[in-house]
């Protein structure tokens, strides 16, 4: 249910819409639960004192009730007011959101800078069938735009619409519309070359988005009928169909659970707990157990967060990019358009070697600084999977590494994942001199360059591989400490957007490092010049 928002200055041509009226309840409950949790934590510290206090105020229960009611009223009142003041609108260039009661805020998120679109459904919102749409634009902390809550179908529709606009589908259609004579038949629309975009580039767009070939002709009709400013109206008519998607892999819960059981941190804490149990049994001092509670809660909380956040993980590929769905209580459906992934890392802890499991994470601008604890599960591309799936995940980001034919690419990746200096064919590794500085993993430190990306390898106990597409390098750094200088070594860092990955190649031969720095900056420049357009459905520039 969408009511047009009447209040506030309306920009010409923008059609402001309100979010779902149940939003205040969903948001308000979150606040109340938070207060209850904090309050109960405070109270539980002193149960005896509380009981005494309860006895004293026993006669005054109605005051307590009144306070609670007033508190709930204020929270919901505030949330309701906030709902009244929140509205969003979408046009071809930007998504607009305005909100705030005392401090009004109006935010425009440029769609050509759109980095990712998430549909987030917290537990309570799921019960109501609501969802929140989060647009990530790369603009430092808290620059994302959260539109919520909306009805689930409405959120899906809006996401498809935003992605279509961000992809340049609508823009492309608009540029075609005015030039074509009204009489054009659908078939000639396909063949007639529009002004700026070649017909070849428009065709697949229409096809992949499942827009009927009749569409341009219809648009012509409405254009001649004078539809100029009322963009919002024809939104409802031609709700862009969701781009078709193809599921690539999914992570069964059993595998996720087993992978979590293979985390060394878990067993370390279990060991610690057993040790504590022994200590308690020996000393009969139960205070020790209480002092260990925060650590246990911390580990347990982390495990649960990993499990709940990565539960039911599914990845799919669509013309709009990579689609990820996951979550047990709070579900999240992420869409990362093509070319938005800044870096990929594949890691393998020591106990994941047996089943050859890997974890794949990505840097996406905007995700790294997302709402606190969620950043971890937000930037996961594959929580855990066998090598083939991990390579599929890498393929989702970089379909072609340009490292030769398929066999050669596979061999290169094998070397990147598990090889070291003794078996290397492609990788340039730390020289023997680095052994003293990095006794464990000097043989693993190294890099390889393909036509599309730089592969940085490292770590012996926790193996890691970082892949940075050439055109996504932000800046490069060369560092050398006094010990490194003595041994004529240097480390190269590839600066990426904030996120879990900070790609670096440690302890290279100094001249080699300098050469890499020089060559990589040239490669990055060349790759940027040929990079695809920000609106990924438009033809290359």
């Amino acid at each position: 249910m969408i009511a047009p928002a009447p209040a506030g200055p309306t920009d010409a041509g923008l059609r402001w819409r309100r979010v779902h009226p149940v939003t205040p309840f969903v948001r308000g409950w979150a606040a109340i639960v938070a207060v209850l949790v904090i309050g109960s934590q405070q109270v539980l510290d002193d149960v005896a004192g509380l009981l005494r206090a309860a006895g004293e105020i026993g006669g005054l229960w109605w005051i307590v009730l009144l306070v609670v009611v007033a508190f709930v009223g204020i929270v919901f009142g505030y949330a309701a007011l906030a709902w009244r003041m929140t509205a969003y609108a979408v046009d071809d260039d930007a998504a607009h959101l305005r909100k705030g009661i005392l401090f009004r805020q109006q935010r425009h998120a440029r769609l050509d800078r759109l980095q990712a679109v998430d549909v987030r459904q917290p537990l309570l919102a799921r019960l109501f069938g609501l969802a929140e749409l989060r647009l990530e634009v790369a603009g430092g902390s808290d620059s994302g735009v959260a539109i919520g809550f909306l009805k689930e179908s409405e959120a899906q529709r809006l996401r498809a619409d935003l992605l279509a606009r961000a992809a340049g589908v609508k823009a492309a259609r608009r540029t075609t519309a005015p030039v074509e004579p009204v009489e054009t038949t659908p078939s000639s629309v396909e063949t007639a070359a529009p002004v700026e975009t070649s017909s070849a580039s428009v065709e697949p767009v229409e096809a992949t988005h499942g827009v009927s070939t009749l569409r341009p002709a219809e648009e012509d009709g409405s254009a001649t009928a004078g539809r100029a400013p009322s963009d919002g109206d024809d939104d409802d008519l031609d709700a862009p169909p969701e781009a078709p998607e193809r599921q690539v892999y999914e992570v069964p819960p059993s595998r996720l659970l087993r992978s979590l059981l293979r985390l060394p941190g878990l067993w370390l804490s279990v060991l610690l707990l057993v040790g504590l149990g022994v200590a308690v049994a020996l000393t009969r001092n139960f205070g020790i157990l209480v002092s260990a509670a925060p650590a246990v809660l911390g580990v347990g909380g982390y495990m649960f967060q990993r499990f709940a956040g990565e539960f039911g993980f599914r990845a799919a590929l669509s013309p709009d990019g990579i689609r990820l769905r996951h979550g047990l209580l709070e579900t999240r459906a992420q869409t990362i358009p093509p070319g938005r992934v800044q870096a990929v890392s594949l890691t393998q802890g020591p106990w994941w070697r047996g089943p050859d499991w890997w974890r794949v994470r990505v840097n996406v601008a905007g995700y790294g600084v997302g709402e606190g604890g969620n950043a971890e599960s937000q930037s996961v591309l594959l929580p855990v999977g066998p090598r083939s799936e991990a390579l599929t995940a890498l393929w989702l980001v970089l379909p072609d590494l340009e490292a030769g034919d398929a066999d050669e690419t596979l061999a290169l990746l094998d070397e990147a994942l598990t090889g070291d200096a003794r078996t290397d064919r492609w990788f340039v590794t730390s020289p023997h001199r680095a052994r003293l500085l990095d006794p464990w993993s000097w043989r693993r430190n190294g890099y390889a360059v393909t036509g599309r990306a730089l592969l940085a390898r490292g770590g012996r106990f926790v193996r890691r591989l970082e892949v940075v597409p050439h055109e996504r390098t932000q800046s490069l750094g060369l560092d050398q400490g006094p010990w490194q200088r003595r041994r004529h070594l240097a480390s190269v860092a590839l600066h990426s957007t904030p996120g879990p990955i900070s790609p670096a190649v440690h302890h290279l031969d100094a001249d080699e490092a300098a050469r890499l720095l020089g060559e990589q900056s040239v490669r990055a420049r060349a790759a940027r010049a040929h990079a695809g357009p920000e609106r990924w459905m438009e033809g290359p520039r």
Partner: protein
Amino acid sequence: MTSIPTPGPPASGPFDPPDVVWQGVSPRLIQAQLISSTAVAAVPIVAGTVLAVLFSLWFWLLAGVPAALLVWGVLLIPRQVRAIGYAERDDDLLIRKGIMFRSLVVVPYGRMQFVDVEAGPLDRKLGIAKVQLHTASASTDADIPGLVPDEAERLRDRLTARGEARLAGL
């Protein structure tokens, strides 16, 4: 006064790419850094001295450690400042720093998101400013301290112009 060719110590090696003419920063940065580090060290030194005279000789430690650090700093700062260099190439800006821990940063113009020019009260008094480059990466540590205001402005305008000409998405 736009260019101060740097005599900087690393004359060759990985931190000196070929065909790069380094520019140094104003020697007034030495003054600025000496003043600020003296001011920071002065508090414990004075306090330690007073306490040592009044109460116990142990308080000389409180004064001695920062004093030693200050002497170390006084000896080091001029060399450190002279080691700072930057170079504008056709497509990127190079910034070089450090003697013990050396670093070299390459920032492509097209990757710059914005450029900051900063000058604190002491900097203004001495007539220097700091230019800081920001890319989409938080780990890009690219700032050039101790620039003459004219040079800082020139650099800012130039970087902005070049950035616009080569602007790429993320």
